[in-house]
Each structure stands twice: as structure tokens, then as C-alpha cells.
């Protein structure tokens, strides 16, 4: 009997380790990297925060197709293209500042919805192979994109803004630079130092829980454990953060040194709220149902094909928004290659955060973005310190990105085998 119990505990620990293997591995790599890189805390915190704001929406764009059982949506590349087309159009009309970004987004909305719809239709023809289809579709779309902007712009499609064209008048120049008023236009609306931002966010969360409790008390409903523990947790985190700031000079300095773009942050929060809200609607419920079992969903009268197309459209639209935020943050983009790595990098980040091709949530996206980009920043520096060769770290981060995807997919397959074995064992 006792051996049975230990084996059960063993299976549990094994499962826990396997379920979080990728995340744990990255955690170790990041800690080791930070020690080896030997950089000032202000530099690391600053870089991580700016990359978090830059990339998070692109990663969030992946969530809905995972719910729908379609795996990682490699075709968010098409959404990125839609955003780039939007920027090219508004640059062509010499727009500048916030207006340029708003017009770019307005242009990319119909485009990304159209691309998403077509992609969804294609995916409905290739059920079960959505990921590889999405990947190849990305390459195919790049071909068309290149054709349009490399050869047709100029001779066939008139371009008003001549600075966009190459000197011979055929094809667009690369990279395309946003002017100074447009670069980081959204970021620049409102910058706050990180320590204040953290205090602000924590207070808002505290207020949120307190308000909910008040509301329930007024309505004389029972207060559930979720509200009270949420309130308690936010008070605790606030206290810990305050103590940390008081006790460590370097920490406080690093936070004060880092400015965060609040407007971009608000956009991210809106996307998060939308995704949370979506999962509580009829549409979200249908998406989850289709993801769990298409035959059952269909037999209950849920139009699975339509739901799957909708999921991809939402994903592509969010990807367009994400790429727009990304480009305004950087200030330029290489015309023909900027979209190439959007899919792979976002997917790798999400997987690092602990998501699988069957399960992903906002928490996975945020944790993944933090870990993945920490690795991105520190690996060249760690490589330089270790081997006196930054190239090695550069190589390492590209290698790791693909390795993560491969390992996560292999682990997923392994997990289902293990789960089946455990199930068979239980049946005895």
C-alpha cells in the first residue's frame, strides 16, 4: 500500500515537473544569465519593461485560437503585415503623430479581418494541421507582400510620398522610418517612472477588490473567498513592495530610472479586459466548446466552422494592433522582414510562460514575455562575459527560440502519452 502511495506522489511530482518543464528551465537560464551578464539592475529592469510593453499584445493575440483548439496561430504574421500596410499607407499620405498611427490602425482593421477570415477558411479545410498550415501560409503571404511592395509599388501602384520609393522608382525603400512626431507617439502621451506606476497599479487593484466587497455588502450578498483573498493579497504585495523600495537603494534607483508608457499600458489592459470578457460571453463559450470537441459542439448545434473563423479573425486583428504598438515603440521597421519573426518569437514567449497548444491564458503570456525577453537581453551580454564573444550569445538566443518551440511541442506529445499511461494505471 505504502509503495502505491509513494508512486502516486511520484507521479504527481513528475507531472508537476513535466507540466512546467519549459518555464522552470527558462527561469534557471534567466537567473544564471543575469548573474553572468553582470549588468546594473537599472539597465536590466529598464530593458525588460520596455520590451514587455512592446511585445505583450502580440503574444496576447495568440490566446483565442488556442482556446478554439487550433493550436498556436503562426499566421499572426498576416496581422503584422496588415499593420505594416497601414503604416505604409499613412506614411504615403505624409501623416504624422498620433493621427498617423490611428489612420494606420483604421486601415489595418479591414485588412486584418479579411486576412483572418481567409486564413480561418483555409484552416477549416486543414483541420488538425492548423499550425503547419499557418506557418506555410506566412511564407506564402510574404511572397505576395514582397511582390506588391517590391515590384508593383511605383510602376503600377502610384506612390505619392517619393521618399518611400527606392531611387530607381520601383519598390519601397527599407527600412521605413517613422518621423520624430510619430515615433513612440503613444508611449509619449504619458510617461511615469516605474516605482510610481507599480504603486498606482497596486492601489487600483486594491480599490477594485475593495469596491467589489463594498458592492456585495450593500447588496447583502455573501462575500466569496475570491474577493477577500484578492484584497489580502494586494495589501500584502503592496507592503512587500514598499519594504523592498525602502530597504534597497539600488532597487529603488533602478525603478526611478525606468519610465513606463502608461497609454500603451492602458491599451494592453484594454486587450486583457477584452480577452477576459470574451471568455465570459456566449461567443467565448462556443469557442471553448469547439476547442474541446468539434463533433460534440456541432451535434449541439454550434456552428464550429464559423466560430473557428471568428477566433482567427480576432487573433489577426489583435496581432495587427500589437505590431503597430511594436513599430511605434521602435520607430522604424524593415519593410520586407519585420513581420517574419513575429509568429515564432511570440509563440516561443507564450510557450516559455507555461502555455501549451491546448491551454493558454493571460498569465502565461505575461510570464512568458518576462522570461523570454530577459533571456533575449542578457544572453549576448552573458556570452560576452563568458567567452568574450557577444556573437555566441546572439547565436544562442536565436537557437533557443526555435529550441523552445520544439521542446514545448515534444513535451506536449510526451505529456499526453504519460497521461494515458497514468489513466491506464488507475483503471487497474
Amino acid at each position, binding site marked *: 500500500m505504502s509503495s502505491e502511495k509513494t508512486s502516486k506522489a511520484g507521479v504527481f511530482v513528475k507531472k508537476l515537473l513535466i507540466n512546467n518543464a519549459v518555464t522552470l528551465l527558462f527561469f534557471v537560464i534567466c537567473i544564471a544569465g543575469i548573474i553572468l551578464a553582470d549588468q546594473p539592475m537599472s539597465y536590466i529592469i529598464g530593458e525588460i519593461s520596455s520590451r514587455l510593453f512592446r511585445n505583450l499584445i502580440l503574444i496576447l493575440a495568440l490566446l483565442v485560437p488556442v482556446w478554439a483548439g487550433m493550436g498556436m496561430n503562426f499566421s499572426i504574421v498576416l496581422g503584422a503585415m496588415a499593420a505594416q500596410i497601414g503604416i505604409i499607407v499613412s506614411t504615403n499620405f505624409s501623416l504624422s503623430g498620433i493621427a498617423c498611427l490611428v489612420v494606420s490602425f483604421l486601415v489595418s482593421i479591414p485588412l486584418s479581418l479579411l486576412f483572418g477570415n481567409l486564413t480561418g477558411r483555409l484552416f477549416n479545410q486543414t483541420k488538425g494541421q492548423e499550425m503547419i498550415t499557418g506557418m506555410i501560409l506566412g511564407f506564402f503571404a510574404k511572397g505576395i507582400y514582397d511582390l506588391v511592395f517590391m515590384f508593383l509599388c511605383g510602376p503600377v501602384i502610384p506612390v505619392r510620398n517619393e521618399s518611400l520609393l527606392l531611387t530607381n522608382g520601383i519598390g519601397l525603400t527599407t527600412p521605413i522610418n517613422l518621423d520624430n512626431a510619430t515615433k513612440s507617439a503613444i508611449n509619449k502621451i504619458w510617461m511615469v517612472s516605474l516605482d510610481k506606476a507599480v504603486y498606482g497599479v497596486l492601489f487600483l487593484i486594491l480599490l477594485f477588490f475593495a469596491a467589489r466587497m463594498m458592492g456585495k455588502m450593500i447588496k447583502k450578498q455573501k462575500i466569496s473567498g475570491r474577493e477577500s483573498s484578492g484584497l489580502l493579497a494586494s495589501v500584502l504585495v503592496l507592503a512587500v513592495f514598499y519594504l523592498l523600495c525602502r530597504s534597497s537603494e539600488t532597487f529603488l534607483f533602478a525603478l526611478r530610472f525606468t519610465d513606463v508608457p502608461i497609454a500603451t499600458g492602458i491599451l494592453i489592459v484594454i486587450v486583457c479586459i477584452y480577452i477576459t470578457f470574451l471568455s465570459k460571453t456566449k461567443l467565448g463559450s462556443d469557442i471553448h466548446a469547439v476547442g474541446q470537441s468539434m463533433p460534440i459542439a456541432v451535434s449541439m*448545434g454550434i456552428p464550429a466552422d464559423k466560430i473557428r473563423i471568428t477566433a482567427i479573425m480576432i487573433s489577426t486583428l489583435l496581432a495587427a494592433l500589437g505590431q503597430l504598438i511594436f513599430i511605434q515603440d521602435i520607430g522604424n521597421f524593415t519593410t520586407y522582414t519585420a513581420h517574419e519573426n513575429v509568429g515564432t518569437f511570440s509563440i516561443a514567449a507564450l510557450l516559455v510562460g507555461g502555455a501549451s497548444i491546448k491551454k493558454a491564458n493571460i498569465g502565461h503570456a505575461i510570464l512568458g514575455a518576462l522570461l523570454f525577453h530577459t533571456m533575449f537581453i542578457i544572453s549576448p551580454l552573458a556570452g560576452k562575459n563568458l567567452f568574450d564573444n557577444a556573437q555566441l550569445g546572439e547565436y544562442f538566443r536565436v537557437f533557443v527560440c526555435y529550441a523552445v518551440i520544439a521542446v514545448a511541442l515534444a513535451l506536449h506529445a510526451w505529456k499526453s502519452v504519460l497521461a494515458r499511461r497514468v489513466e491506464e494505471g488507475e483503471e487497474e
Partner: protein
Amino acid sequence: MDTLLHFKNIKKSFSGNVVLDGVDFKIQPGQIVALAGENGAGKSTLMNILFGMNVIAETGGYEGEIIFEGKSVKVQSPLDAMELGIGMVHQEFMLLPGFTVARNIKLNRENLIPSLISRITPKSYQMLDNPQIIKEAAGALGRLGMEINPEVTVDKLPVGHMQFVEIAREIDKSNLKLLVLDEPTAVLTESEAERFLKCIRKVADAGIAVIFISHRLDEVIQLADSVVILRDGQMVFDEKTENTDKHQIAELMVGRKLEAESLMNVNRSFEEDIILEIKHLRVNMPGERSRDVSLKVRRGEILGIGGLAGHGKTSISNGIFGMYPARGSVHYKGRPLSFGKIGEALNQGMAFVSEDRKGVGLLLNESIALNMVYTDMKVNRRFLKKYGFFSQFDKKSAREVVEQMIQELDIRCTGPDQIVGRLSGGNQQKVCMARALITKPELLFVSEPTRGIDIGAKQLLLNYLVKINKEQGITIVVTSSELNELRTICDRIAIIGSGVVQGILAPDAPNVDFALLMSGEKGGNT
């Protein structure tokens, strides 16, 4: 009382093969009708017609009329049936494992409340009204007398409870008038089944008519108001339950009397020379699990394995040949057989003709010749040209044997080089048989030898099995869903029910005995 549903002279044939021939019966509201019959008697075809499944329209529709609430209806799709108020609980569960019980019960009929966004955008952005969903789901479960927590996800629910959740989903539909239950108690334990039957009674008392398909005759007697029996597509019985009993139903289900002379192997005697002994075999074959099978096969006999679909009869040979994970012990000629290893049984001198002709049995894109000798090449390393470490298929040496087999089995083909995929089902089956025989087995397993092939080929195959048994002394174990086929050629017939051997009967045993064993009533002798 008004008639709710009237099947009026329903006829249906699949490419000339009549499967339903003049089925005609009525159901009143609140009445429970048991629909009984062997596999292939036409029960599922009748239900497919009622639910407007695609297979029916694709194969040319049906004759006759369905009258629902006094109106003649043509059901085009399951959704039509749902709108009429006809619900079905399937044999396999149609529940989403990651959803809660409540969400499963209300799936696609969720209670919704408008949200801020849904006022300006499509309705799909309305929010789920979770408290209301839970309340109504709990209400539906309560009406069944079940206490299941509606907030638990289905994957954490015991299997026995899932059936109740499915019923709750159906009765929660306000327009439900007729509920079809397809072998609902197959997965339930005895006490669960008892509760389940009470639960169905409650449903019927609420004025909902129930069609109850079951092989458990005890349940039929206990629950149903009337019994309809189908046999070979014909309705042979439609009576009130109180006017009949278990034995009559069993007798009628199996029906056809066999002519004594058509039984080929009655009263042959054998010495107790056990060639294969199976002890406590448990095979995990999805949909055909066996739990605890113990059997002895005597040298020289033809042993039949029969039983209803889904009770584990096909898993026995598949387990011995390593196709599915199995436990237990198998002794072949007194020595233990490591049956977990694929190929081990073949190497020991057994052969297997699988029921899955196209999946396991044949290389569809290869020639007849290669298909016939392929196993033998692996097992006995014949028909090979050897060059040191390499070997190559030797067409010439195979040719003679293949041509002889083609002649012997009367395989209609253009020659040994014809691609197997182009042959008819019957001829493909003959190729499978030839492939097994070329390995010169001492013990041959044949699974569903006549499934999906025409009558002429059927008879030839059965005769051939008897012939090789008598002339070459090959011991044969035949698994088949067609009881009469087994009775024609076998010396003994083991009936498998619920994953165990229910009993072993002689081929000339009375119909009733077979029927009772199949429906899980212990009895019979060895």
C-alpha cells in the same frame, strides 16, 4: 390518448440489401417502448431515419411515413429532430470534459444577459448568466432525483454519473416530447443501472415518451410498457410487456430456426489436447474491452467466439496478436506466450485474419502476390533472395504458391500482379485468408470473416474454413457477430458478454440459450 409517434410501414435498403422491411408501430406520450433485436436487426437504421442522419439521404432515403403528433414529418437533420422535440442519449458520451456539468447541460442553450458591448454589436457578445445556468441545471438534475454538483467539471465525474447528465440535458429542453436511449445502461454498474431505470420512469411520468434500446432483457421487462422486436429488418413482435416474458423475447430476437443438416460440425469428439489456453485475459481495445476471459482451445476443433458488438469478443484475438495492450496469461502448446510483443504469436505458428481488412489486413496499394506472401517473408523468411546482410523479394518463387491460392480460393482477379485495393470486398477477404494460410499455421484466428461481403463469397469462405480444418488439421478460432454463421461451422461456441465468457454452447443448442447468454443471463454448459 393521442399517438405521439407512428412509424408507418418503414422500408429501407442499402444498395439492394433490405435492412428494414415494413416496420410499423406507435408510441403514446409517457409510454416507454423497448426496442430489442440482434446487431444488424435494423434498430440503428430506424433511429437514423428518425433523426434524419446523412447516411439515410445519401443512400437513397427511405419508404414509408413518420407521423409525429398527427402530422407527417420528413426529418432532414438532427437539428430538425431537436426542434420537433426528439432527443437522444447516445451510447458514447457527448459531453465536454473541461466544462462544468451545468454548462454541459445548457450547452448552446445558455441563459444570457446583455452586456455593454452586446447592445451595439452582435448578440454573440452577450454574457453567460452563470447563476441562472447553474440553477436550471440543478433543477433538471433534481427532476431526475440526482444529486450531482452542477459546478463540477465533467472529467472529474464518475462514469456512472455522465449518463444522468446527458438525460438532464435532454429533459431540460422545454419542448422535449420523445427521448431515445441507446443502450444507456451498458456502462453502468448494477446499482447505478437501478437508479437509472427509476430516473427514466420519472421522465416518462412527466409525459415524455421514451424509446429504450437495450440488450439487458431484465431491464426491458422491468421498465418498458411495451416491447418491439426487430429481426433482420422485420418487426416480429409488438406487444404489451405484461403479455410476454424474457424467454419469449430472447427466442424472438434470435428467431430463425436452423436446419439440422446445415450444422456441419455437431458431435465431433476430441481428445483433451489443449493447444491454446487463455487465462484471465484482459484486453484494452477501445470499444471492445474484455475484462476477464478464460478459454481452452482443443487441437483440431473449430471454436466460435460470439456475442454482441461492444462486449469484447473481437479483443481476444487482437490481444493475443499484440494489437492492443493486454494482461493475463496465454499458453500455446503448454508454453507461455509473450503476447505483448507484435509478431510473437506469428513466430510461434499462429496466424490471424483481422476484422479490419483495410487497416490491418492488407497493403491496399500493393499486388495480390506481395500481399499474400508478405507475412510469410517476415515469419518464415521464405520467398527471399539473400545477399549476405540484404535480402530481396523473390517474385518467381512466390508466383507458384500465389497462383495456386488464387485458384483454390477462387479469387476473381486479372492475375497475381493486380493491386489489392481494386478487388471487391469478398476477394480482398480471400487474399487475407491466403496470406494467413501461406504461413502454414497450426492455429488460425479469423475475425469477422464474412463482414461486408456477398453471399456467394460468404459460403465459399465458410466451406473453405471447414475444409482446411478437416484436410490440413488446422485448429481454427472464428470470431463473428453472426451467430448462425458460427453455428454452421463450429464445434463449440463461446459467448462473450460484458468482457467475460458467459458460457460455451454446442452449435445445436436452442436459440433461447444463445439469446440469454448474449443478454448477460448466466446459464448454459460446456
